[in-house]
C-alpha cells in the first residue's frame, strides 16, 4: 500500500466511477460517507469516500408523486421542497444524529442505503417500499441502473430493493427515484397513560385491526400512543370511533401540532440519546411482551414502535444475552459492546449474501465488514 490519501471526494458519478475502478485495482478499502451522520461506520478501516458532492434534485413531479434526486442531496432540502407542494416522504426517515452523536446533514442516499423507516411503516410501508429505482456504481466502477421512475415496474430483477438497506456494501448510490405521497391534511394522537407494555400491545393489536388507518402505534414511558391522519373530517371521525372503542376515559388527545412534535421525537428515538448501547429489535408484535419482560431483567429501558414490531432497547445487556432473547437484534449504538452489530443469519442466507457481495464488489472494498460479512 503506497497510496496515502486522507479523503476521496468525487464531484460527480463519473469521477466516483474512476475512483472505484482504481480502488478495486489496488484493493484499497473505502468507508463511504454521505452526510456523515452515521458514526457506526467509524470502525471500518478504509479511506473515507465522501459522496456528498453528488447532490441535487434532478426532477420533482408532484402530480406523478415522483422525486428523482442525486444521492448526496440533503434530506432537509428534499423535505422542504415536498412540503411546499403538500407532499412528503411517507416513510418518515428517522434522524438519528441525536442518538448516534453524529454531526453533518442526513442525505437521501444515506436513508435509502440504511432503509431508514419511521413510525408510519405500519401504514405505508418501509423506505424500500417507496423506492422506484436507482443508479449506483459497483466496486469495479461500473455505472449501473435498476428500476426506473414509474410507480409500477417489474422489468427484470429488482436490484433496487436489494441495494436499499445494503449499507453501501453492494455499490455506491448516485441517484434515487422515490415515490412521494400527499401528506395528511390533519392528524391527531390518542395517548393511553399509566400502562405497561402488555396492555399497550393489546391496544395496538385492537387499533391496527380497525379500518381507521392508524399510522403510528408506539409505547414510551408507560404511555401508548396511536396516531391517525387524513382529511380533517376523516381524522375527527376516526378519533371519535377509536375513543368509543376503547372507552373514552383517561385517553389524552393531541392536536395536529402536538402530534407532529411527539412523533418526530418517537421517530428519532430522541428519548434514548446518550452513551449506553442501543439495540433495534424486530419481532412479531405479540412476541414483544415476553421479550420486553426479559429485556427488563437485563436492566435498562425499552420503547416500542410499529405496533410492537420494533423494540428499542437501551441498556447494559450483553450481546450474547440479547441475541438469545431476540434473534433479530441489531446494535445501533455500540456503547462499548464488541462483536457483530448485525444479527446472525441462517447459513444459506449468509452464503447467498456473501456471494452477491462478491459479484457487486469482487475486491471487497465497499464498507468492508459494516454488515459483519
Amino acid at each position, binding site marked *: 500500500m503506497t497510496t496515502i490519501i486522507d479523503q476521496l471526494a468525487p464531484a460527480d458519478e463519473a469521477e466516483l466511477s474512476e475512483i472505484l475502478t482504481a480502488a478495486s485495482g489496488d484493493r484499497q478499502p473505502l468507508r463511504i460517507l454521505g452526510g456523515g451522520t452515521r458514526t457506526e461506520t467509524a470502525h471500518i478501516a478504509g479511506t473515507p469516500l465522501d459522496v456528498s458532492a453528488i447532490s441535487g434534485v434532478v426532477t420533482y413531479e408532484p402530480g406523478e408523486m415522483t422525486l428523482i434526486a442525486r444521492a448526496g442531496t440533503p434530506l432537509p432540502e428534499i423535505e422542504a421542497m415536498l412540503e411546499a407542494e403538500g407532499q412528503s416522504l411517507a416513510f418518515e426517515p428517522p434522524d438519528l444524529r441525536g442518538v448516534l452523536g453524529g454531526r453533518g446533514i442526513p442525505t437521501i442516499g444515506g436513508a435509502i442505503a440504511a432503509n431508514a423507516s419511521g413510525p408510519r411503516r405500519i401504514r405505508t410501508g418501509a423506505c*424500500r417500499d417507496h423506492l422506484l429505482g436507482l443508479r449506483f456504481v*459497483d466496486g469495479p466502477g461500473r455505472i449501473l441502473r435498476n428500476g426506473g421512475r414509474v410507480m409500477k415496474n*417489474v422489468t427484470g430483477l*429488482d436490484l433496487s430493493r436489494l441495494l436499499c438497506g445494503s449499507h453501501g456494501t453492494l455499490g455506491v448510490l448516485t441517484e434515487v427515484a422515490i415515490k412521494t405521497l400527499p401528506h395528511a391534511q390533519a392528524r391527531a394522537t390518542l395517548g393511553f397513560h399509566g400502562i405497561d407494555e402488555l396492555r399497550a400491545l393489546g391496544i395496538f393489536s385492537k387499533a391496527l385491526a380497525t379500518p381507521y388507518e392508524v399510522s403510528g402505534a408506539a409505547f414510551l414511558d408507560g404511555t401508548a400512543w396511536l396516531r391517525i391522519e387524513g382529511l380533517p373530517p376523516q381524522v375527527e371521525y376516526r378519533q371519535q370511533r377509536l375513543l368509543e372503542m376503547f372507552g373514552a376515559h383517561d385517553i389524552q388527545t393531541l392536536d395536529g401540532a402536538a402530534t407532529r412534535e411527539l412523533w418526530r421525537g418517537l421517530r428519532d428515538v430522541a428519548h434514548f440519546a446518550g452513551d449506553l448501547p442501543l439495540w433495534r429489535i424486530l419481532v412479531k408484535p405479540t412476541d414483544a411482551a415476553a421479550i420486553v419482560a426479559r429485556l427488563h431483567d437485563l436492566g435498562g429501558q425499552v420503547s416500542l414502535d410499529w405496533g410492537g414490531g420494533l423494540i428499542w432497547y437501551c441498556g447494559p445487556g450483553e450481546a450474547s444475552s440479547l441475541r438469545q432473547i431476540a434473534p433479530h437484534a441489531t446494535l445501533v449504538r455500540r456503547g462499548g459492546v464488541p462483536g457483530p452489530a448485525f444479527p446472525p443469519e441462517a447459513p444459506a442466507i449468509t452464503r447467498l449474501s456473501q456471494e452477491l457481495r462478491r459479484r457487486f464488489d469482487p475486491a471487497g472494498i465497499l464498507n468492508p465488514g459494516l454488515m459483519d460479512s
Partner: protein
Amino acid sequence: MSGIIMPQPDSTILARAAQIVAALREVLPEDTVISDGNETRAYECDALTAYRCPPLAVVLPRSTAEVAAAMRVCSDMGVPVVPRGAGTSLAGGALPTADCVVIGTARLRDVLEIDTDNRFMRVQTGVTNLSVSEVLAPHGFFYAPDPSSQLACTIAGNIAMNSGGAHCLKYGVTTNNLMGATVVLTSGEIVEFGGPQAGAAGLDLLGLLCGSEGQLGIVTEAVLRILPRPEGARPVLIGFDSAEVAGECVARIIRSGVLPVAIEYMDEPCLRAVENFAKAGYPDCPAVLIVEVEGSPDEIAVQIAHIREIADALNPVEFRESRNADDALAIWKGRKSAFGAMGRLGDYICLDGTVPVGQLPHTLRRIGELSKEHGLEVANVFHAGDGNMHPLILFNANEPGQLERAEAFGADILRLCVEVGGCLTGEHGVGIEKRDLMTAQYDPDDLAIQMEVKDVFDPAWLLNPAKVFPLESSARYRQRAAE
C-alpha cells in the same frame, strides 16, 4: 411460428427422458409425476397461447419437501425446471421447453395460519389470489394485490411476477405486501427469507426474490401482510371529451391530497366494445375515468366532493356518482368486462408498459398514430393513477402474418413507453414476450449485473433459463453453466 425464439432442446436430456422420470418417481409419491404426452399437453402453454411446447414431465408436489426433492433430482441430472403457478402469465413466464420439468404449485393449497393480531397470514403458494381474500373476509381482513386474473392466479405466480392490480395505487404491489417466503433453491436446499417480523437487518433477499420470474428459486410458502377491510368503497365515473383532459384530471386528483384506491382509464375503442358487450351504460365520449375511494359513508362523501371539485374545473362530459351498491357495481361492470368484451372483437395482445402519469396524453396520441402505421386497431384500458397502461392490440390469428404485425406494433409501443421515461412491464413480467426488448430499457452492464445475481442463485442456469434476459446476452452464462 412467430417471432420469439426458444433455444433448441438439449438432445442429451431428451435421450434421458425415461431415466429422469424414473428418478423423479423414485423420490416422489406415485401420482405426483406426469409424463404421459396427453397429460403433459395441458401444461404446454400459459396465457400467452401463441407459444406452446409440452414439457418432458410435470411434477405436482404437495409440500415444500416434495418440491425440494424434485428440484434436487433435476439439479443432479442437469434438467431445466420451469416453475408454474396457475399458468395465467400473459408474458410466457410459464412456457415450458421440451427438455424441461415443470414444477407446478397446483396442489400446494393450504392456508397454514391466519394471525390478525400480528396482521399476517401464511399460505402454501398454490392458493389462488381470490381465495386468500375470501378466507380472510370472515376475519374482517383482506390481501391487497388484486390482479384481474385473481380468480385463477396463484400467490406463487403473484410473487414471481410481483403482481399488482387495480388497487395498488393505495396499497402497493406484491413486494409491498409480502413479508416472508419459504424458498427452494436449485440445490434443493430450503431457506426462509423474511418472516412475520417487520423486515430483516441483512440484505433484502425477499425483495430481490419478488418479481424474479422463477429465476432464483421456487417459493412454496409465503407470509402475506393482511389489512383490515375498509368500511366501504365507492366509485365515481367521470367522462371527458379528450384523453389530455382525462390525464390532467388524474394528475390533479393525485396532487390534491386525496389518494384514491384506484383510478382506471378507458378510451373510446374500449368503451365502444364494452358498451356492445356489457351494456354498462357508459357515456359516449373519448375517455372515461373510474375513481374509487374508501372509508365510512361520511369519509367517502368528503373525498368524492373533493374529486368532483377537481373534475368540474375540467368540464367533464359526465360525473356519475354511485348512491348505493348497485350503482357501484354498474360503474365497475364495464371496466371488469373490458377484457372479455375485447376478446369478442377478435384476438388481442395485451401490453403492460408503464409511463410517467404526465406522459399519458402524449403516449396515447402516439399509440393512435402507431395504430394507423401498423394498420391494426388498439384499445386502451388501464390503471391511470400509476401510469400502468394496457394497450390491447386487435388482430386476426387466422390470417397469416397478423400475429407478427401485432407483435411488431406491441414492441413499438413498449419502446415508446421506455422513451418517455417508463418501462416495458408494470405488472405482467418480461417472460419470453419482452425478453428481447430488455436492451431497450437496460444497458449491457445493467443486464450483466442482473444475470450475475441469477448466477449466484442458479449457477447451472436451470431455472426458467431462456426467459427475462435476451438470449444473446444470456448465451455466455448459459454456455458456461452447461460446461
